[in-house]
């Protein structure tokens, strides 16, 4: 059977810490202000009966991805494992995908992602450092750049193109887990083949009622959410 890789997020286990978002930033070298892994929060009810939810988000790697449909250069594509991937080399930065994406998970680099590190300004001349000095000392445009990212994608993407979550294809295609999964301290994320009924992800979907984001958009997301965030609903 064809593979269908997806993710199940157990909101009962999630504690809303943002560790996944930060881990993603370090793994994938995203610029300040760009988060492939993100979240939204929602507060409902009236004091003192208040409910709060934190929903982690990432590219849904949809089965019917609108971003792929609209990409004029076929830079957005679905690979043979069901990953929705992006080719940085052929992307022309038209942002059609950004407009088509109902989830806000595709990001456009309007500036050079490492631009801020090029500043030579020192707070106190000769006493404190500068971005440019750190670039020089680390011999990197982004001092903490993770070279692993570069195995399958530009390690740091160029100005003028889009970028998005790849399900950490540079790791998952070597048999490892996505970095947000291994970094989640609560064990709330499970990645696996949803077509394999024995995968842990499938078992969770069999055990619990699940939901996806914006089902009415018809995108058939492969990121599923189970259980409630709070215990007081």
């Amino acid at each position, binding site marked *: 059977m064809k593979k269908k890789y997806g993710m199940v997020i157990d909101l009962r286990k999630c504690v809303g810490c943002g*560790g996944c978002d930060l881990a993603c930033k370090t793994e994938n070298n995203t610029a300040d202000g760009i988060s492939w892994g993100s979240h939204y929060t929602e507060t409902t009810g009236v*004091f003192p009966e208040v*409910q709060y939810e934190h929903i982690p988000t990432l590219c849904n790697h949809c089965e019917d991805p609108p971003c792929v449909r609209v990409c004029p250069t076929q830079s957005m594509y679905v*690979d043979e494992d069901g990953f929705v991937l992006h080719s940085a080399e052929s992307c022309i930065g038209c942002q059609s995908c950004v407009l088509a994406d109902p989830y806000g998970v595709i990001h456009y680099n309007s500036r050079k992602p490492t631009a801020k590190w090029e500043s030579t300004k020192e707070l*106190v001349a000769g006493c404190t450092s500068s971005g440019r000095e750190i670039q020089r000392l680390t011999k990197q445009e982004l001092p903490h750049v993770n070279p692993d990212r570069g195995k399958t994608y530009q390690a740091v993407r160029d100005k003028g193109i889009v970028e998005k979550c790849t399900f950490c294809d540079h790791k998952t295609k070597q048999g490892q887990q996505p970095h947000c999964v291994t970094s989640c301290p609560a064990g709330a994320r499970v990645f696996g083949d949803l077509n394999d009924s024995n995968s842990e992800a499938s078992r969770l979907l069999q055990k619990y009622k699940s939901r996806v984001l914006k089902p009415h958009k018809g995108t058939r997301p492969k990121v599923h959410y189970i259980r409630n965030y709070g215990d007081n609903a």
Partner: protein
Amino acid sequence: MKVDRRKFLQISSATAAVAAVAPGTTLVSNLAHAKGKMKSVAQGEWISTVCQGCTTWCPVQAYVVEGRVTKVRGNPHSKANHGQICPRPHLAIQQMYDPDRVKTPMKRTNPKKGREEDPKFVPITWEEAIDTIADKMLELRQNSESEKFVLLRGRYSYMRDLLYGAVPKIFGSPNGISHSAICAEAEKFGSFYTEGYWGYNDFDLEHTKYVICWGADPVASNRQVPHAMSIWGHVVDNATLVTVDPRLSATAAKGKKWLPVIPGEDGALALAMAHVILTEGLWSKEFVGDFKDGQNHFAMKHEIDESMFNEVESHGVVKWWNLEVMKRTPEWAAPICGIPAEQIREVAMGFAKAAPYAISWVSPGASMQVRGGYSSMAAHALNGLVGSIDHKGGVVQGGKPPVSKTPSFKPYQDDVAKKHSKAKKIDQRGFKDFPAMKKKPGKGVVTNNTADAILQGKPYDVKVIIGYWNNFNFSCAGADRWDRALTKVPFFAHITTNIAEMTHFADIVLPAAFSMFEKNAYIKGKQNLHSYAGLQQRVVKPLWDVKMDESEVSFMLAQSLAKKGFKNLLEYYQAEFKDPETGKVPETSLEFTESALKFYTKPLWDGTKGAAKGDHIHGWNEFKRLGVWNTKRYKYKKHWGGKFKTKTKKFEFYSETLKKNLKAHAEKHHTNVDDIMKTCKYTGQGEYAFIPHHEPAYRWGDPGKYPLIFNEHRSRLNREGRSQNVPWYYELKDVDPGDVINADVAKINPITASKYGLENGDKIRITSPTGHLECTVKVWEGVRPGTVIKCYGQGHWNYGRIASADFAKKVPKGGSNNHLLPCDYDRFSGSTARHGGLTRVNIQKV
């Protein structure tokens, strides 16, 4: 290759179920990019170290590629956090690679001090910097006033004694002044004056069935954060979680019940719960004991003859009942604490019925209040009542890693040092109004009073200060006092990574190695019923010539003092901290660091004490690789059977330990306990001084002029006050429930908002009787009407370009709560008060 990929895509999207692969095959073998097709890149390795972003102090690992840190994870060898981390360690990467780091020693060239004065720092050499400090110190000795030297310590590792202990003691000053009293001493007060434990408890979350978090927010901050985060799904599935907090905290958001207590009235709520537990007959017969006739006489709600009760592991339960608990009904408590009586009853009964698999978790939120010591005792006493103390599923103490003790300073103290190190300490601990009873009266620190003592010149003037890893001008309530105090001090040297608020007043600035990635040290901690010692390591070569505060700076200072004729400190370091394996005498600051670290940790890796009490580690190199030594799992009921370290050896509901200490303090000042209670702002008189009892919340400000109650809380992204120059902090700030990205918000309830005509995003000025700040409004249901709740952390006017709105002009970004909060104390513990609605405020749109 790209073309092929696209062709494949076209085919596969046209025909849905082509390319069938046998089910059950592994991810590796079937994924499109086989390993060989991937670009080859530089490989790195995981190196163990310790995060000190909060007080959990987790063993972690850094991924180091070509001498750079690229990412972090929990240390898989740690039994405490079992390889998990919270969000804080990720932020540390940007903290290390902060373009605003101080990269060289500097000196002030503008002799005028003050917030408005530009220090006009210029770079100098390490030699000049250290020699200048040594000269200033030696001047004091020459003038026979060496006690006027003060070492102000902030955050620390357990290498602390090298600097904070040895330097003042051998030099000749009593003044090693720590930050502890701005941290959580009032929390320790509660457990010490009930179960005799001056420390932070650990919690058996795995087996618990009921958790009451008193201001505690363990999935976000303080304490045992990664362990709590990793097990919280299990806790929510298996236990009832109740959170007592004026704010819907991160933990409250996960819980069954949120009890939005009126700030500072936690004690009333806890006492009413105790009342329910006793009247309903739900106390632990095994731990507390029972009436001799087997009847529940508490149910009759009248005074009881103590002889009717056989007490087992505790002391004074009937006395406590007669004096206090009897009258503290839920109906009495409801209007005081703002929680309906029915809800109090329900939680108390649920908690007691789940017991002894029950946790009453006291935190700074419920104790770092004026009079908070008694709230801390009351909430902690609930664990005693239901017998969850030291019990499976309950609240336990911790183990101690068997490290080497710091060698005695005494043989190295000359006559000057012996005499002057016995002078009174500068922080006025032990004064009549500062009992600071850490185990004994006058033994605790009163950190924040040091500023006032300096300003008063009482007990004497301070002339030379070295401060490290601290920023009291930002982190202490009544922060402006520190500006004035440090303006007054003639010479101040600051060891710091950034130009902090405190640094602004420095004469000499020494660039510190960043603890998590650039420092060699060790720490102790506990989580998940395992205590541990973790090794902090220089995982990468620092980009600049920065030095480790506790070991390197101390050694360089000792060398300079020796060069100038005072050799004792260097002699101490060189004689006592030889390499324990080779016997080599340390000659450089780096050699000293390594030999001292090996000296302290040797019992953990030499097959002796460490192997007996926990992990068996084979040698120094293995310890460096593992990065952590774990104790065996904590054994329950260690202190049952009369082994609590209280005066009675029992769990004290009537604290004979507190009675003894308070009487001693009163006698020292030729007065009585009632007078001490009044002097220290407590209302209880007579026997009440010795029991957990109700103390009304103490608030600054007239309700007419300041109608709202201000309360603060912590952020899960705060690396104490040090992550505010990190862009990711602002990008993710909404992970703190109610907070907003790229903003510093005061959260107010919609009812409060409509009364003041305020909307989301409005700019406001918050004014207290002692200060003011400006920030942004967030209208949110998760806070109690009538309160203004704001996270601590933002509002830096120094520290860096991102932390401040305008570094050059000293304009803060957002507002620091400590400019609003008055300086006040829970005087029995010496703690600085910051929670419990310490001050009333007014708000105005600006």
